[in-house]
């Protein structure tokens, strides 16, 4: 029979809408409004997985987000999703769920395997086992993965899309139960902008789990009226299916809204999830409380649930997951579960570890014929393909042991209650302090952090009675709105049915059984998801992991994806009891975000694929694309790396480009260079401070190369700066350093030299730059410009303004190849036009467009450095053999004083040199270590490393060249050095001057 545990009436499910679904291939039915958990329980399915370490059968314990066991694999690739909590997953037509931890198999209960594994996995198992050689980890890891079975990730790309939203509520209310609804009402009525977040599909919280009445009517009427009023308020947003995951600094909170997770994958057109980024003036936390399981022998058997979860399944979903119920409690609240279940005709027994129950609870339960067994405990659970019975024994006087003979009570369902824990996760995330509640034996929110103004209301604040919840909610909503600048009055309701509170609670952190703890086969679980027992906690204490943070990590208590929602206080209780201390003396661990796991999709939103990162393209980009140019990423820029012809690989293309530039002429897109326009009467003074050389006398029409140092005296950027006019300069920086250099200049001008009259503007994207290099460069340019290119009047390191290809241009005669070269700067919008004109004008000379790879080779042939490649933030100008550019006459410039530091002037620093391999065909990989002495195996003393290395067509008719930094390199000229490649082979090379071509520098001046 289908749904044989569905009650004939009741619950919030829609019985006219039958839904088909499957679990491990078995076809089942449930109703609209069910969760996957309630639908499975309606069909009598308790066994839903095996535990993490011991592979014991496990069933549902809870009805909400605190459920530790019911993690399932949902759907198939590409939509498959591991670790879906069945108690939160709404049922939909054709839902496919699979148990994900079922080794050796879900149904097969091999006790021999269990006990074998149990002996192998005590507390601290990981630490103890993996002290072994690191190599063994790979083997262990595979076994653990197989055994643990934490679900499977999808293998195909996620076909869904995700979004982000930013909102700035005056009052953010977290939790849509009675306190949260009341808070939203008070705040909303003041006109404040309110967002109310509820994790499940329906507002009402605990009111959906019981049969309370408000103002003489079922509570649902109050919920409906409240929601109607809130919906009528234009400034109020109600977000159901939304999980508050992070409470971060300055009331910045994130919430994952599940827009498509309650539908069959592929049927929703909108985003699957939306991550809300909320900056709230005030936060009201109304997150409720979780029931605490009792830690008794074999309390993990399927069918052993938390008492209030049974009540939730009954009232919210119309499911009573058993016919014979034993309620095991240490407080009054669980009597409600017993009384409500008895009302459906179920057979119910209460086992109460106290000597007496509260009068109201006791008489109400007795009144409906429930047997109450006082001062007793469950000491064993019989499970064999289903829950069969429990053993009940009397407690001794102090509750540390049991006495007499066990009484066997047949049952198929156990509800346990060890009291209640306010949901402190978000308060804890907000850095709030905690206060201990002695009567309830739990923590509640204490002082909040000053940067995160928030209020807690209702059960999460330790107010477990419904009337108190509502009062606190109304008051908190009004207070929050008032503090946010609104005039608010607290709402109220009358005549709320009293709830059975906790009453006199008897803390029994470890419920004794007929064997001492940790002996015999019975296990007392406090942490279900990570499979940790009370015995593990005691072992940790014995082995010296006394601090609660150490205990937590040693036993992995509270470290699973439920973040210890059900286990934390019980673990503290067990430790406190063992040490004879109070829980506050033991301390508490911190709850970490996220409250519930967050999908990568929600985190990423739309910032993926083409929108993952912005791309910058030069004005000539489309031309290079049309010519089949190959691009590389340089910062955000796409730069053409080389222009292959048919059949060419990179090596062949670069070889050809390099040769052609030196033989005839080439053209290069230099538009990505950083460019800063500097103006003002103190501009020259500024340049003089920024660069190591002299700048005060640079005349209009002239350019100068400069090195920029940080205050450590290390090179951090270089480039050519031109004097455009008096008090007006055009600075260029490296492509990657553009923003950094402007920031550096601004830092000094704003913080140290605010009185200086000089202004800097980034013009990197305003200018397109076309560099023409090679012996024929002048001839190519001459056919396009009215500028007089005569070598005597327009000299190397001069610049001129004029027309190029009909466009106003600045032409800088500067060279990064060592050839005669002109860099044509035109407004960016003319970049492609001028580029094409240059290309056409160069045809008689076979002009070759070349990319960054060739540019790198050509500059290396000349020994020109690339900052960041040949230098790494530890190189001074002296280390780079660039003393010639450091002024001795200037009294000060940035970094100057550091050059006199002992560490900079000492012998033995690494210095930039050239390397020629003995075998001219060997191109050393960049990064190859230069070593003092070749040994059969590492370690070998390192003397330096290769920074740049290429095959050059222009040196000795074609051979490899390299630049390297080498300890005492300047003194080793002509010496032979050893280098070791990654594959272990070693190479010898000669230390040489790094200028390989045109040592006299005649070509650039020609």
């Amino acid at each position: 029979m289908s749904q044989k545990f569905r009650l004939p009436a009741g619950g919030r499910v829609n019985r006219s809408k039958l839904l088909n679904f499957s679990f491990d291939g078995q076809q089942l039915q449930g109703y609209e409004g069910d969760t996957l958990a309630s639908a499975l329980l309606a069909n009598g399915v308790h066994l839903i997985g095996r535990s993490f370490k011991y592979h014991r059968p496990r069933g549902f314990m809870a009805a909400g987000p605190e459920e530790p066991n019911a993690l399932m694999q949902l759907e198939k690739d590409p939509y498959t999703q591991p670790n879906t909590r069945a108690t939160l997953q709404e049922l939909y037509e054709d839902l496919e769920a699979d148990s994900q931890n079922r080794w050796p198999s879900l149904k097969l209960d091999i006790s021999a395997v269990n006990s074998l594994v149990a002996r192998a996995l005590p507390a601290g198992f990981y630490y103890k086992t993996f002290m072994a050689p690191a190599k063994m980890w790979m083997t262990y890891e595979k076994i653990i993965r197989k055994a643990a079975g934490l679900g499977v990730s999808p293998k195909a790309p996620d076909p869904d899309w995700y979004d982000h939203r930013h909102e700035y509520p005056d009052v953010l209310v977290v939790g849509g139960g009675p306190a949260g609804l009341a808070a939203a009402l008070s705040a909303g009525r003041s006109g404040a902008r309110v967002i109310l977040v509820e994790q499940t599909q329906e507002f009402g919280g605990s009111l959906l789990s019981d049969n309370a009445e408000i103002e003489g009517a079922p509570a649902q009427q109050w919920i409906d009226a409240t929601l109607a009023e809130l919906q009528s308020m234009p400034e109020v947003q109600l977000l159901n299916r939304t999980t508050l995951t992070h409470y971060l600094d300055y009331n910045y909170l994130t919430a994952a809204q599940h827009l498509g997770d309650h539908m069959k994958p592929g049927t929703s057109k909108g985003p699957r999830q939306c991550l809300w980024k909320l900056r709230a003036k005030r936060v009201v936390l109304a997150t409720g409380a979780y029931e605490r399981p009792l830690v008794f022998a074999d309390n993990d058997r399927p069918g052993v649930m938390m008492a209030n979860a049974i009540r939730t399944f009954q009232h919210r979903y119309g499911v009573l997951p058993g016919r014979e119920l034993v309620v095991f409690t240490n407080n009054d609240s669980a009597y409600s579960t017993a009384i409500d279940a008895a009302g459906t005709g179920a057979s119910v027994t209460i086992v109460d570890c106290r000597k007496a129950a509260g009068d109201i609870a006791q008489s109400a339960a007795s009144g409906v014929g429930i047997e109450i067994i006082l001062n007793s405990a469950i000491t064993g659970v019989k499970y064999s393909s289903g829950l069969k019975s429990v053993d009940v024994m009397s407690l001794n006087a102090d509750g540390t042991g049991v006495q007499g003979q066990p009484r066997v009570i047949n049952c198929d369902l156990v509800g346990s209650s060890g009291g209640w824990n306010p949901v402190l996760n978000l308060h804890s995330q907000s850095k709030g302090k905690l206060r201990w509640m002695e009567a309830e034996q739990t923590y509640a929110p204490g002082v909040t952090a000053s940067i995160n103004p928030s209020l807690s209301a209702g059960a999460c604040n330790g107010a477990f009675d419904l009337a108190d919840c509502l009062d606190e909610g109304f008051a908190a909503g009004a207070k929050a709105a008032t503090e946010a600048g609104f005039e608010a009055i607290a709402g109220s309701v009358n005549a709320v049915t009293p709830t059975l509170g906790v009453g006199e609670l008897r803390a029994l952190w470890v419920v004794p059984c007929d064997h001492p703890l940790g002996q015999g086969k019975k296990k007392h679980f406090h942490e279900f998801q990570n499979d940790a027992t009370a015995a593990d906690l005691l072992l940790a204490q014995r082995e010296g992991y006394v601090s609660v943070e150490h205990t937590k990590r040693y036993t992995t208590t509270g470290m699973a994806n439920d973040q210890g929602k059900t286990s934390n206080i019980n673990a503290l209780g067990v430790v406190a009891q063992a040490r004879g201390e109070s829980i506050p003396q033991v301390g508490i661990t911190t709850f970490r975000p996220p409250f519930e796991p967050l999908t990568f999709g929600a985190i990423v939103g739309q910032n993926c694929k083409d929108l993952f990162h912005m791309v910058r393209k030069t004005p000539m980009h489309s031309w290079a694309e049309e010519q089949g140019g190959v691009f590389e990423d340089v910062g955000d820029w796409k730069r053409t790396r080389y222009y292959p012809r048919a059949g060419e690989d990179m090596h062949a293309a670069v070889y050809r480009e390099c040769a052609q530039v030196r033989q005839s002429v080439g053209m290069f897109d230099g538009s990505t260079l950083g460019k800063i326009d500097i103006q003002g009467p103190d501009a020259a003074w500024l340049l003089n401070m920024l660069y190591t050389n002299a700048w005060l006398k640079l005349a209009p029409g002239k350019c100068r190369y400069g090195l920029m140092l940080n205050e450590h005296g290390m090179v951090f950027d270089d480039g050519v700066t031109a004097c455009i006019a008096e008090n007006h300069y055009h600075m260029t920086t490296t492509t990657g350093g553009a923003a950094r250099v402007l920031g550096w200049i601004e830092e000094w001008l704003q913080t140290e030299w605010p009185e200086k009259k000089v202004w800097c503007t980034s013009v990197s994207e305003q200018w397109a730059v076309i560099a023409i290099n090679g012996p024929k460069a002048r001839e190519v340019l001459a056919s396009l410009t009215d500028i007089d290119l005569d070598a005597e009047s327009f000299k190397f390191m001069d610049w001129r303004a004029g027309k190029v290809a009909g466009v106003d241009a600045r032409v800088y005669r500067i060279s990064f190849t060592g050839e005669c070269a002109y860099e044509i700067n035109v407004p960016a919008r003319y970049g492609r036009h001028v580029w094409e004109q240059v290309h056409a004008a160069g045809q008689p000379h076979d002009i070759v467009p070349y990319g960054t790879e060739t540019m790198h080779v050509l500059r290396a042939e000349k020994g020109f450095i690339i900052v960041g490649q040949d230098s790494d933030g530890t190189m001074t100008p002296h280390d780079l053999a660039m003393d010639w550019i450091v002024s001795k006459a200037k009294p000060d410039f940035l970094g100057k004083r550091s050059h006199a530091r002992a560490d900079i002037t000492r012998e033995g620093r690494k210095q930039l040199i050239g390397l020629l391999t003995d075998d001219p065909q060997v191109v050393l990989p960049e990064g190859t270590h230069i070593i003092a002495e070749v040994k059969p195996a590492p370690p070998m003393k390192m003397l330096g490393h290769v920074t740049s290395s290429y095959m050059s067509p222009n040196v000795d008719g074609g051979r490899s060249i390299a630049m390297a930094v080498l300890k005492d390199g300047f003194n080793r000229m002509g010496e032979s050095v050893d280098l070791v490649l990654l594959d272990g082979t070693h190479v010898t090379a000669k230390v040489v001057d790094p200028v390989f071509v045109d040592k006299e520098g005649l070509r650039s001046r020609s």
Partner: protein
Amino acid sequence: MLILDCPWCGTRDQSEFHCHGEAHIARPTDTEKMDDKAWGEYVFFRTNPKGIHYERWTHDHGCKRWFNAVRNTATDEFLAFYKPGEKAPAVGSDQ
């Protein structure tokens, strides 16, 4: 994520800003006369208090201007924001 009150723009999210460490370290003017130790103090050494910290920030994704802030490093509470060149405000005693 913190909120900062840029003296030129007003309150904005931390993601628009960048912190640059301790404030009120003037660049020495007579660098040639300083010994290595004094210069090293200026270049390398910064305080790292638990409590009140005067520090420099930039509003990178906004006005791109520098300013100073006083922050309690233990609580992340900001106690003051002020422009460069302005006198450091006195705030409550170290917590």
